[in-house]
C-alpha cells in the first residue's frame, strides 16, 4: 500500500484526522456552552468570540467545535453500515450469479435511481424523534446501492480469475474463496465506496439539520446554518454565522474526496497527475522513439 500514500491521500487523511480529533475533544475545549445565551448579541469575530456570536449571544466557535461530533458520528456510522450492506449484497450478487444476482442487482439499481435525499427527508420527518443513530441508519439504508453496484461488477470479474479457480481446484471452500481470495482484492474499492458513502452521509445529515427535519437541539454544522437561516443572518450581514460551519463542511468534504482520489489513483495508476515527479505529456510513450527521450522513469 506504499504508493497509496501519495500527496493527496496524506493531505486528505491529515484534514480528516484533524476533524476526528475535534469531534472527540471538541466539547471539552469549547470555550463556552454552545447553547448558553449571553448579552453579546450578533457580535462579529473578536478575541472573546473567535467566530462571533448569534442573535441570542451564543458562541459560534463553540457551536462549530461541538457540532463536529454529530456530523462525524453520523457520517462514519452511516458509512460503516452502508459499506457492510454493499459488501454483503454486491459481493454475494457477483459471486453467486444467476437469479440471486438478477434480484440483488435490480434491488440496488432501484435504490440508485430513486432520488435519495427526498426519500431521506420523508422518512426522517415521519420519525417522531430522529436522533443521530436513527438518521445514520436511514441514510445508510438509502446509500448502500452505489457501492454494491461497483463491488458486484468487480466481483464478477474477479470470480472468473484463474487464481479463484485455482484455489477452488486446490480444494478451498466457497466461503474461503470469497473471504480470502476475492475480498482482499476488493480492499481499495471497498475503502473508496466507504469514503464515498461518508461524503454522502455528511452532506445528508447537514442538509437534514439545515432544513430542520432532524432534531435541531443536537448541535451539528447543519443546525448552526438552520438557526442562521432562521434568524435572517444573511440579510443582517452576519457573515460569521454561516461562513465557519460551511467552510468546515467543504473542508471535510474535500478531505474525503482527496482520500478517494488517492485510492482511485492507486487502483488505476493512469490517473496520476504526474508520474514519478516529472510531468508526462500525453503523447510521450506513444511512439518508441519518444519513449527514450521522454525518460519515463
Amino acid at each position: 500500500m506504499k504508493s497509496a500514500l501519495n500527496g493527496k491521500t496524506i493531505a486528505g487523511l491529515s484534514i480528516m484526522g484533524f476533524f476526528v480529533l475535534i469531534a472527540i475533544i471538541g466539547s471539552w475545549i469549547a470555550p463556552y456552552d454552545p447553547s448558553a445565551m449571553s448579552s453579546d448579541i450578533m457580535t462579529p469575530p473578536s478575541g472573546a468570540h473567535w467566530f462571533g456570536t448569534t442573535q441570542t449571544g451564543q458562541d459560534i466557535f463553540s457551536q462549530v467545535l461541538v457540532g463536529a461530533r454529530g456530523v462525524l458520528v453520523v457520517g462514519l456510522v452511516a458509512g460503516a453500515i452502508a459499506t457492510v450492506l454493499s459488501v454483503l449484497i454486491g459481493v454475494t450478487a457477483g459471486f453467486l450469479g444467476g437469479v440471486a444476482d438478477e434480484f440483488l442487482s435490480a434491488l440496488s439499481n432501484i435504490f440508485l435511481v430513486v432520488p435519495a435525499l427526498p426519500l431521506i427527508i420523508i422518512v426522517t420527518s415521519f420519525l417522531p424523534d430522529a436522533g443521530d443513530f436513527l438518521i445514520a441508519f436511514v441514510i445508510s439504508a438509502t446509500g448502500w446501492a452505489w457501492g454494491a453496484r461497483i463491488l458486484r461488477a468487480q466481483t464478477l470479474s474477479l470470480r472468473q480469475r484463474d487464481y479463484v479457480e485455482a484455489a477452488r481446484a486446490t480444494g478451498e471452500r466457497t466461503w474461503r474463496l470469497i473471504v480470502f481470495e476475492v475480498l482482499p482484492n476488493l480492499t481499495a474499492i471497498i475503502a473508496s465506496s466507504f469514503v464515498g458513502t461518508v461524503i454522502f452521509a455528511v452532506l445528508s445529515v447537514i442538509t437534514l439539520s439545515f432544513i430542520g427535519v432532524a432534531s435541531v437541539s443536537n448541535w451539528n454544522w447543519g443546525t448552526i446554518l438552520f438557526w442562521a437561516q432562521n434568524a435572517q443572518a444573511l440579510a443582517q450581514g452576519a457573515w460569521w454565522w454561516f461562513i465557519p460551519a460551511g467552510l468546515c463542511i467543504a473542508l471535510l468534504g474535500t478531505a474525503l474526496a482527496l482520500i478517494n482520489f488517492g485510492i482511485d489513483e492507486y487502483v488505476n495508476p493512469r490517473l496520476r497527475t504526474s508520474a514519478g515527479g516529472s510531468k508526462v505529456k500525453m503523447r510521450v510513450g506513444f511512439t518508441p522513439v519518444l519513449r527514450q527521450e521522454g525518460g519515463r522513469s
Partner: protein
Amino acid sequence: MRFLLRRALFYLVTAWAAITINFMLPRMLPGDPVQAMIARFQGRLSTDAIASLYVLFGLDTESSMLSQYLTYWGNLFKGDLGLSFTYFPTPVSEVIAQSIPWTLALMGVTTVISFVLGTMIGVYAGWKRGSWIDALLPITTFFSAIPYFWLGLIAISVFAVSWGAFPAAGGYEPGLIPGFDWEFISSALYYSVLPALTVLISSIAGWILGMRNMMVTVSSEDYVTVAHAKGLPEKRVMLGYAARNAVLPSISGFALSLGFIVGGTLLVEMVFSYPGIGYVLFTGVNAKDYPLMQGIFLIITMAVLVANLLADVVYLMLDPRTRKAA
C-alpha cells in the same frame, strides 16, 4: 429496441417500488402525526378528503392491507394525492402542478449546461494531463464538496445583500402576473440567474472530474495510439477517438447522479425561496404536511425515471455496441 424495452421495464418496476415504498412508509412508521394533523383540520375537511387521507396514510384500520393498497392505486390513477395542509384546501396535485414548471425549467437548463460544459472542460483537462489545468483539480474538488445550499447562501450574501445586483429570493418581480409576456419572462430570467449559477458551479465539478479521469484512462488505449500513429490531427484524435469513447460512462453516470442533482437543486430552491417544487417541499417539511411531502417524492421520482429513460436513448444513439444488441 430490446435494450430500451428492458430499461423501460426496469423503470416500471422502479416506479412500482417507489409508489409501494410511499404506501408502506406511513404504515410502518407511527401514524400519530398525521392523525393529529387531520384532527386540527377537523370540520374544515370534507368527508371525501378525509377518506382519501385515510387511504394515503393507512389510518383506516378496518379494511385489509390489500384493499387499502388497491384503493391507493385507484386514487393515484385519478391524480388524487390528498389535500395539502399548508396550502389548505388546495389538493396536493394542484400545488405540485403550479410549482413543477419552475423546477423543470431551472433544473433542466442548468443540468444540461453543467453536463455539456463540464464534459467539455473534462475532455480538455484529461487530454492535457500534466499541464497547468491539473491545478484546477483541487479547486473543483473543493467546489464539489460544498453543499449546494451553502454556496447559495454565499451567493445571496455577496451578490444580493452586499452588492445588490441580483434579487435574494423569489422567482419573479412581486406584483407581476405570471404569463407569456416579455416583462414576466425577463423578470423570471433575471431572478433565476443566481440559483442557476449556484447549481451550475456546484454540479459542474463532478462532470469535469469524471470526464477527466475517463479521458486519461481512454487516452492510453491502443486505438488512440493507433489514431496518433496514423498521423491524424490532434483535435480529431481527442474528440473523435478519445472523447467519443470516454463520454459513454459519463452519460450512464449522468442518469445515476440525477437523483443527487435533484436533491441539491431542491435545496437551492429552498435557500432562494424559488417557487419551485423544492421550496414547496421545504414549506411542507416545516409544516409537517405529509400528503404534500409524499406527493412531491412521487413526482420527483417519476421525473427522474423519465430523465433516465431519455439518457438511455442518448446512450443508445452513441454506443454502437448497445445499438447492435438492441
